[in-house]
Structures are given as structure tokens and as C-alpha cells.
């Protein structure tokens, strides 16, 4: 069979992908136009859907001091990223690599000790 283009089926594929979801959407639209009226209201369209009324403004300011907690979190987080492959390959590692890794852990732990010493881990 002489095929003008090997990619014509992509056009068909795209057309089906477009029409297939549009049919139920159009049917739903038709259904609500003919039978089932929409009844929006302020309460129904409220953002919060736990039964309670939302109070106050959602745009509130956070203290800039929280950056310290972000940094302390990063210490442990980055450590975990490197420690897990280290632990997985531990048995096959040469002594030099283990010493280098322990040095890295020491550096990270030093940061934690520094934060601890400055009293950033106290909950105020």
C-alpha cells in the first residue's frame, strides 16, 4: 500500500484524543442546560470545605527567623542524600573513601553543633 506519510496516524490520534474527552464534557453541558440547573451560592463556592467558616486573612507574614530552621533542616537533609549511598556501598569502599566520608559527616555535624550552641534548637 502506498502510504503518503508514515505520520498521518498521529493526526488521527490527536483528533481522537481531542474529541474523546470533549464528547462527555459536551454531554454534561447539554444535560445541565436541558435538565439540571446550576445553583451556585457564596457558601457552596467557599474555598474552605471542612464545614467551618474560614477566619482571618490567608495572607499572613512569617517571621524571617525561620530561615535558621530551614538551614538546620538542610544540614540533615543533605547529609542523608550522601549517607544513604555511602551506607549501601560501605562494604566495598576503600579506607580512604571511608575516612573522607567521616570527615564530611564531621563537617555537617559541626554545623549542627554550632546551631545547638547558639541556642537555635530551643523552642520559643
Amino acid at each position, binding site marked *: 500500500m502506498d502510504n503518503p506519510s508514515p505520520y498521518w496516524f498521529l493526526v488521527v490520534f490527536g483528533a481522537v484524543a481531542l474529541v474523546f474527552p470533549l464528547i462527555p464534557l459536551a454531554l454534561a453541558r447539554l444535560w445541565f442546560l436541558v*435538565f*439540571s*440547573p446550576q*445553583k451556585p*451560592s457564596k*457558601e*457552596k463556592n*467557599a474555598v474552605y*470545605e*471542612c*464545614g*467551618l*467558616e474560614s477566619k482571618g486573612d490567608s495572607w499572613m507574614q512569617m517571621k524571617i527567623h525561620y530561615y535558621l530552621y530551614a538551614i538546620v533542616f538542610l544540614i540533615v537533609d543533605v547529609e542523608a542524600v550522601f549517607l544513604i549511598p555511602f551506607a549501601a556501598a560501605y562494604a566495598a569502599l576503600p579506607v580512604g573513601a571511608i575516612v573522607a566520608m567521616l570527615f564530611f559527616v564531621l563537617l555537617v555535624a559541626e554545623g549542627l553543633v554550632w546551631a545547638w550552641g547558639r541556642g537555635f534548637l530551643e523552642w520559643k
Partner: protein
Amino acid sequence: MTEADEKTIQDLRRSGILLTTLEDLYNWGRSNSVWPLQFGLACCAIEMIAASMSRFDIARFGSEVFRPSPRQADLMIVSGTVTKKMAPQVVRLYNQMPEPKYVIAMGACAISGGPFKQGYNVLKGIDRYIPVDVHIPGCPPRPEALLHGLMELQEKIREQNLTGENRPRHLRSDVSGEFPVPEFGTCDLEPPSNPAVWTPPEPIREGL
């Protein structure tokens, strides 16, 4: 539909041809996919959870999809004691559900306050604020009773008309699907009931 038509349809069905109406198809579809709101209030909720688990398996009736959002739910199972503190939230959640929406009052507490009826903070029945479709008595009702209530609701859905004067609320543009949310007053919820759905019964006094 006349009796002869009904007979023809039955004959055709026996030979493998299914005839139906748009109304029947619509009701068949939605009565078999009643999605409840994932919403438990007290001990009846434990029975509701049991009904959704494998031993009782509410999935047989198409209702296993407990939705955590009222936007996606069709059915509110009021399962347990409604306190006066909780009643506004229950009504607000009901208001946030899209039409068509149904309510099952499960257990004595949701129907009338049950054993806690004398309590100062217990609502004497959720049907004071929202229209209840099926009442399930029991304290708590067993999962079979909940399944029976669900089947009764399905029966009710199947009998609803798509057109005509007595079509249900969700098909009428002139009837609102929103019910007033009660507020805390000085000594009770205000209003103490929604007169559109419930009127207090006249007390019968003998010997006066």
C-alpha cells in the same frame, strides 16, 4: 407507558434486546454510584466503616467511594450524635455538596438525639435543619441496616422523575438547594429548627 408496552419490553428483554427510557437510564446510573461523604460523627461511624470493609462490602452497591470533599459527594450519612456545636458544620457541609444530594440519618442520635436526647448540647435530630431521605433506626444500626438504608435510597432515586411537575429539587431552578446554617444563640441554636423542613409536633396533653 401502557401495560402492553411493558409486556413488549419484557418480551424483547428475554430475547436480548434492552429498551429503556432516558429517565430510567439516568436513574439507573446515579442510583448505582451514590458516593457518600467521608464523614463520621460518633459510634455509628464505626458501623459505617465496617460496612465499607470487605465483610459487608458497600462496594457491591457502588457506594464504596467515600469522598473526603463535599464537592464530590452525593450522599451525606449523618452517622452519630449531632451536637449543637457540630450542627452548623453539618449543615454547611450539606450546603457545599452539589445537587443531587441525599441524606441518610443513621442511628437513634441522628434521628432524634437518641440516648443523649436530654443532653443540653445534643441536637434532637438532624432533620430539624436538613431534609433527610432515609432514617435508619438502631443504636448503632448494624452494617446490614445501613446497606438496607442505602438500598431504600437507591429505590427512592430510581423513582424520581426527570421531567414534570413533581420532579425533584435538583432539577428545578426555582428551588434552592441551600439551607440556612444555624448560629449559636444565648441558650440554643438560632433558629432552633428550619421551619421549611421541620415543624415541632403539637404536644398531646390529656386531662386538660
